[in-house]
């Protein structure tokens, strides 16, 4: 009987065991199906999963296993051959996949394990980095503290504030129990407790400086841990508690003298202060390296800040000193000025007061000499006269010298006749010289200019003084005076290095040599000659009878004239030569305004220039107009007369070479006319020369004329010769201002 192709299970399905197997298979299949679902779900969720291929395999394996168990459920009852073949297929597939998976896992599992080790490694590394981070942060914190401390310390220049701030800030930063500063005493043999953090007024504890611990601290620039039993560390009264760790560091005290310009401060001669820091006793804190570094840095900063404070104190003190000195100097200067003013006032008064009686004495005594006197009386009067003359000279010299001394003397520059000066000196000295039977000769070099610009009076005084001395100190023989223009090589005198002559076009150096054959001077005495009041007392024969001021004054005058004066002598009895060099200006135009008016003989050239000259005369006064016209007509000019300024402006033309204007009448505005004439004739050569005629004038009026643009000024009354010379000069130089 061919019935169904079914397979019968071996055991009856109603058996209890079979029932349990059935249920287990069911659950297994369920689980096996749900596992891949979960896996897929979670893998999908996670971002990283490197082994997808393994997962697929594993998934396949599990699914097939599940399928197998699921199909097994049907094999508990009678089932057909199809079910059996499906079952077989599933089992075969499952077997294949699981074998492959097993083989795969051999490779995969070590990988998975290594992942795990790497994870561990990374975790360790992370922990390490965290630690280091912590350290760095601490250091940074420390650095911030240092900066803040430094800022606090350096924000003030007051010594005490610096130190107090240091202690306070350090105490705060490091959370210290106690912080103290020991400063060396003046003697340098002890350390004195100067500042503490907690105690208000440290009593003057001192500790000898030569303690081994202290030496140890001073010898290194690092913060050193010291024992709490050390004398410097015993800052608290002997307490019940155990003091915490103590650290000491040296603080260099720099002085101004330590800082040389080019070197760093010397390390050998330093003084140190000691800073002691104590940690709180009840905490188990230790001194960390970074804290020690902080302390060292702070100590250095404190040293710098202290030295700055010291420098500042010094400079403040110096400044105060300078101010005081300034005030004192100012006072002294004012006093000196007052003294000078007083002296000048005194001199000014005494000048007059002294000279007046002198004058009276001299005048009256000389008058007395003229009267009838007995011989004794005559002798007495002569003596009086001689003495008073001497006194007068002395007074003059003294007053002159005071004027010279304070630099108030100024040279009276003017043009003068040089030859005349020498002739005058000769004339003055000849009588005395002839009495003494001395022969005086004067030699003037041919290239010596006749006129020069300088102080005539003082030059004559100087030359006279020198020549006078020569005559005075010669008992016999001759005196020779030579004058010539000095060339550059003869100007330098080795004995006077400060005399540096400068040649220029407008000046020349006059050299005067006075040689006498008198008693001579010891060369050693020569430097003293020109000093005030120093008489040459060496020989009794030198009865000088004069004060020692003469040569001193001469020297000063010569210096004012930018010159040099010196005396050469070969010795006693060999005579001496006085040499004088002064700087004089060249006189180009003799008719400078300072020159006293000297009528010159008219030259033919001048004569022809005047003849036919077209001249305009403006004068309100009829008589004086006629007189001026007569003058000019006589000289041959072509004269036009006008009586008012309007007429003058109307008639003036470029043909008129000169316009004479009378300005002493108050109604005439001569300046106005001058300006209008200037405006009318812009070209200089077309404009007539404007000359003011006036009867009386003063310097101011003359200056006004010059400023207004007038070319000349003449004083009335004008003589014929004067008018002739004036016109000649005017035409030659285009300017003529008469001396007022």
């Amino acid at each position: 009987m061919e019935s169904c192709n079914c397979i019968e299970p071996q055991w009856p399905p109603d058996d209890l065991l079979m029932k349990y197997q059935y249920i287990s298979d069911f659950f297994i299949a369920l689980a096996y199906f749900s596992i891949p679902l979960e896996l897929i779900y979670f893998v999908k969720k996670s971002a990283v999963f490197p082994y997808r291929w393994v997962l697929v395999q594993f998934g396949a394996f599990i699914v097939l296993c599940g399928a197998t168990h699921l199909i097994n459920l049907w094999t508990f009852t009678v089932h057909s051959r199809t079910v059996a073949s499906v079952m077989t297929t599933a089992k075969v597939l499952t077997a294949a996949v699981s074998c492959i998976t097993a083989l795969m896992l051999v490779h995969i599992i070590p990988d998975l394990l290594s992942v795990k080790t790497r994870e561990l490694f990374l975790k360790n590394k992370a922990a390490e980095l965290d630690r280091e981070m912590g350290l760095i942060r601490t250091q940074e914190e420390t650095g911030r503290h240092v900066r803040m401390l430094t800022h606090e310390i350096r924000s003030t220049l007051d010594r005490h504030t610096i130190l107090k701030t240091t202690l306070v800030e350090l105490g705060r930063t490091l959370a210290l129990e106690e912080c103290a500063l020991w400063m060396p005493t003046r003697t340098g043999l002890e350390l004195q407790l100067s500042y503490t953090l907690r105690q208000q007024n440290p009593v003057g504890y001192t500790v000898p400086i030569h303690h081994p611990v202290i030496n140890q601290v001073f010898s290194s620039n690092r913060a050193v841990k010291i024992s709490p039993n050390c004398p410097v560390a015993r800052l608290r009264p002997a307490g019940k508690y155990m003091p915490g760790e103590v650290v000491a560091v040296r603080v260099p005290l720099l002085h101004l003298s330590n800082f040389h310009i080019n070197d760093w401060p010397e390390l050998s001669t330093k003084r140190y202060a000691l800073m002691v820091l104590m940690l709180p006793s009840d905490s188990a804190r230790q001194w960390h390296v970074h804290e020690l570094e902080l302390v060292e840095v702070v100590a250095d900063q404190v040293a710098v800040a202290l030295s700055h404070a010291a420098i500042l104190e010094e400079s403040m003190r110096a400044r105060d000193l300078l101010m005081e000195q300034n005030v004192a100097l100012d006072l002294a200067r004012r006093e000196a000025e007052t003294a000078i003013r007083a002296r000048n006032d005194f001199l000014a008064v005494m000048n007059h007061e002294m000279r007046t009686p002198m004058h009276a004495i001299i005048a009256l005594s000389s008058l007395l000499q003229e009267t009838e006197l007995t011989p004794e009386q005559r002798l007495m009067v002569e003596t009086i006269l001689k003495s008073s003359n001497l006194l007068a000279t002395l007074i003059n010299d003294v007053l002159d010298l005071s004027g010279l001394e304070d630099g108030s003397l100024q040279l009276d520059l003017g043009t003068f006749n040089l030859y005349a000066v020498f002739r005058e000196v000769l004339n003055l000295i000849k009588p005395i010289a002839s009495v003494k039977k001395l022969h005086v000769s004067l030699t003037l070099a041919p290239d010596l200019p006749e006129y020069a610009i300088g102080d005539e009076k003082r030059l004559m005084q100087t030359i006279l003084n020198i020549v006078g001395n020569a005559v005075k100190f010669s008992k016999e023989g001759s005196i020779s005076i030579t004058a010539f223009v000095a060339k550059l090589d003869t100007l330098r005198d080795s004995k006077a290095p400060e005399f540096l002559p400068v040649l220029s076009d407008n000046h020349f150096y006059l050299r005067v040599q006075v040689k006498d054959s008198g008693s001579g001077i010891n060369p050693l005495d020569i430097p003293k000659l020109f000093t005030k009041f120093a008489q040459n007392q060496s020989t009794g024969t030198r009865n000088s009878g004069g004060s020692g001021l003469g040569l001193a004054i001469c020297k000063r005058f010569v210096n004012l004239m930018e010159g040099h004066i010196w005396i050469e002598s070969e010795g006693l009895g060999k005579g001496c030569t006085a040499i004088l060099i002064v700087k004089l200006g060249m006189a180009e135009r003799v008719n400078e305004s300072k020159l006293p008016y000297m009528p010159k003989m008219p030259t033919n050239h001048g004569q022809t220039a005047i003849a036919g000259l077209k001249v305009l005369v403006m004068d309100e006064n009829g008589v004086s107009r006629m007189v001026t016209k007569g003058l000019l007509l006589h000289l041959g000019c072509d004269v036009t007369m006008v009586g008012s300024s309007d007429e003058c402006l109307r008639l003036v033309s470029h043909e008129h070479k000169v316009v004479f204007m009378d300005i002493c009448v108050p109604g005439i505005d001569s300046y106005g006319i001058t300006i209008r004439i200037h405006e009318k004739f812009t070209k200089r050569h077309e404009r007539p020369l404007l000359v003011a005629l006036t009867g009386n004038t003063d310097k101011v009026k003359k200056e006004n004329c010059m400023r207004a643009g007038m070319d000349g000024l003449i004083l009335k009354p004008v003589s014929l010769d004067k008018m002739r010379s004036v016109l000649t000069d005017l035409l030659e130089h285009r300017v003529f201002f008469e001396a007022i």
Partner: protein
Amino acid sequence: MDVVNQLQRQFIDYSASLHREGFLDDQFTQLQKLQDDNSPDFVVEVASLFFEDCEKLINNMARALEQQQGVDFKQVDASVHQLKGSSSSIGAMRVKDVCIAFRSFCEAQNREGCLRCLQQVTHEYSLLKNKLQTLFRVHITTCSY
């Protein structure tokens, strides 16, 4: 010729005396020098002009000083100034000196002083005029020879 010499000498003496007495000064001599062939009567002309001027000015001054109500010293001063200028131009020394004094009275506004000066000026001027006229007569007589 003798007469001429005599007359010339007379002229010179008279002129010298005028100088000595202070009526004339150097300026007059200068004026005399200006006289030449071109202007033979130069001095006479100047002198005549001077006399005319003087009379005019003196009249002005007299009128100004006679004013009962407020003398105009400025005007008087101006006239004196003119007179001074003229007299110094011609060399009339005495007149000039009086003018100087006159001016200071004018500045001081002293009417009495001014009147006195005016009298003096008039006096001096007439004297001078007479002397000069005499001089010119001699001169003319000399020249006519």
